[in-house]
């Protein structure tokens, strides 16, 4: 199955996307591309259609126009089996974690393994425990139910489940929203570490300026119904658009920039 996936093509590419609900146009002629191995941050004002765009790229919603390509293949042309194989290459962390509440954390992580592999039970369990460890949860949490977890732990558990099948493309929907600054920073570091370990390509929808400065290679700005610019942060900051200016020149942004710059120098040391 894996052999069919073209690893040289960009993992995800959207061309000329048109999304509308009735007369209400959300995206028009939207082009967006994620290159292999990079962490892309997607920003945009509330109601600009970030979540809709993510759902479109995930295939939860078909756009009214345009094409979505995975690994160079047009999504509409894929056979059911190919689609399934590509789905296994994509992991998603939903905003609230979206864990199955009737199962323990370990069972949650084992769901994709059980469905798509023929691994023996014991190995599946041990792999699930490894994922639990990789996302920084204590081993005891394996047996807990989602209702026993805090918000940050739920996100980590959700991340562990999205990594269950070793995806190459990871979608994160506001991963650090609702976390305390320490937890958010730890989560950023975790994403960076996992990117190196598992060779991930990451798209994260975020409002967290600290995350943008700390870990994103490129930032895409969704404004005026399209991706106005998707480039390195410095370039995006120079972009001439009132919303972008306000977003990156606000007091919170400047504080985050200072902090992000500091941590980057530290990393360089």
């Amino acid at each position, binding site marked *: 199955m894996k052999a069919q996936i073209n690893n040289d093509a960009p993992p995800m590419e959207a061309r000329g996307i048109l999304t509308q609900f009735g007369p209400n146009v959300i995206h028009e002629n939207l082009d967006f591309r994620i290159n292999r191995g990079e962490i892309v941050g997607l920003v945009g004002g509330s109601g600009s259609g970030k979540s809709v765009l993510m759902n479109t790229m995930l295939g939860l919603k078909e756009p009214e126009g345009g094409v979505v390509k995975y690994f160079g293949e047009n999504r509409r042309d894929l056979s059911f089996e190919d689609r399934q194989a590509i789905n296994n290459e994509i992991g998603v962390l939903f905003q609230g974690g979206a864990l199955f509440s009737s199962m323990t954390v370990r069972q949650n992580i084992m769901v994709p393994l059980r469905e798509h592999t023929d*691994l023996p039970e014991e190995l599946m369990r041990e792999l699930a425990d490894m994922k639990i*460890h990789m996302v920084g949860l204590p*081993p005891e949490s*394996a047996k807990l139910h989602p209702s026993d977890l805090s918000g940050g732990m739920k996100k980590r558990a959700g991340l562990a489940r999205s990594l269950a099948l*070793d995806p190459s493309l990871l979608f994160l929907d506001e991963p650090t929203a609702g976390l305390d600054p320490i937890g958010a920073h730890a989560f950023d570091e975790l994403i960076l570490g996992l990117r190196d370990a598992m*060779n991930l390509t990451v798209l994260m929808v975020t409002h967290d300026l600290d995350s943008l400065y700390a870990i994103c290679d490129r930032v895409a700005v969704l404004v005026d119904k399209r991706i106005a610019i998707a480039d390195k942060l410095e370039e995006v900051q120079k972009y001439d658009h009132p919303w972008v200016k306000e977003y990156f020149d606000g007091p919170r942004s400047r504080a985050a920039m200072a902090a992000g710059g500091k941590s980057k120098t530290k990393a360089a040391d």
Partner: protein
Amino acid sequence: MTGTLLVCNLFVMSENEQYTLTEQGQTLLVKARGDWTFENAKSLYESLSDEPGSKELTEVRYDFSEMTELDTSGAYLLARLMEGDAGKRRNWNIDQGTKGQMTLMKAACEALRGEPPVHTRQWYDTLIRLGVATERFGKEVWETLAFIGHFFSVMGRLLLTPYKIRWKSVVALIEEVGLDAAPIVMVLSFFIGAVIAYMGANLLASFGASVFMVDLVGFAVLRELAPIITAILLAGRSDSAFTAQIGAMKMRQEIDAMTVIGLNTYETLVVPRAIACVVVTPILTFLAMMSGIFGGMLVAWTGGADISPVMFFGRFREAIDLTQFGVGLIKTPIFGLIIAIIGCRQGLAVTGSVESLGARTTTSVVQAIFAVIAVDAMFAILFYQIGV
């Protein structure tokens, strides 16, 4: 010289398509080939499990030069080789691995195994479950009674200040519970009336007393079937909706928000539903009675017994007095109240999990149907004793 020595000490433990295990002095050399991913993890796991572990080795060296792909499951399987006696880790390093593979192996080596799930089934589990169920039953009864008490105190207070009742939501609920349910209640009741008529026609024809089927249809539909069918239908349709609506509100903390803002949950949610149900059940039951009798009449006319509508209603007036109609109708507001109270009570008992929403909805419908039938039986005894 050293080279010869080295060669002498080499001892190939096992070799296959995917890996070679070699012992070299105190070191275990692992040469991995091809894909180490979850697609072939099963076969790797099986063949690696068969490898005899050698106890004395203190170090593991991995050679990844011929590896094409490594994912977490592959790394984990390789890391398992590092375990010596009693799970003690050996020292390890990697030849010709990329940085990513290095990080992945590190993560895999550090991974701690959680405790496996314990299956403890004991013979006394049944007794425990029995005890738990009994306790839960007792608690359930107690809490329902407490809820009813609370409801009546709020209701009583509201009846003294009727302007405080949320009439808007009462009217909306009457439409939802009553008007929207009317067609299905009537259709069902029509069929029930027809079935009773057929049954009567068959049985009574053997006595040559077919005309008494009118009595049968009249008694059965007016006294019992129309009220019961309506109540059971409402229990399935509206009671479950109440539980699900209120339960979902509880899950999304809407109920908490209402309490904090100072809205009384009983006033805003329970009382309007109760009033709507009490108002609606007699009306629905009346409609059910009419369509049930109509169904019986149609069967009497066309189903072989040859009782014309004129004859049917003539006999109906002789045999059935207004009391039967009253007996059927008088219990319906109580059914409505039961349905509303149980639906709301179970909805408010929902906790955070999706499971509890499902469990509460099930309990709600079961309890409502049970209560309706039990109360109906009590009414039957009561009416028998006072002779109506």
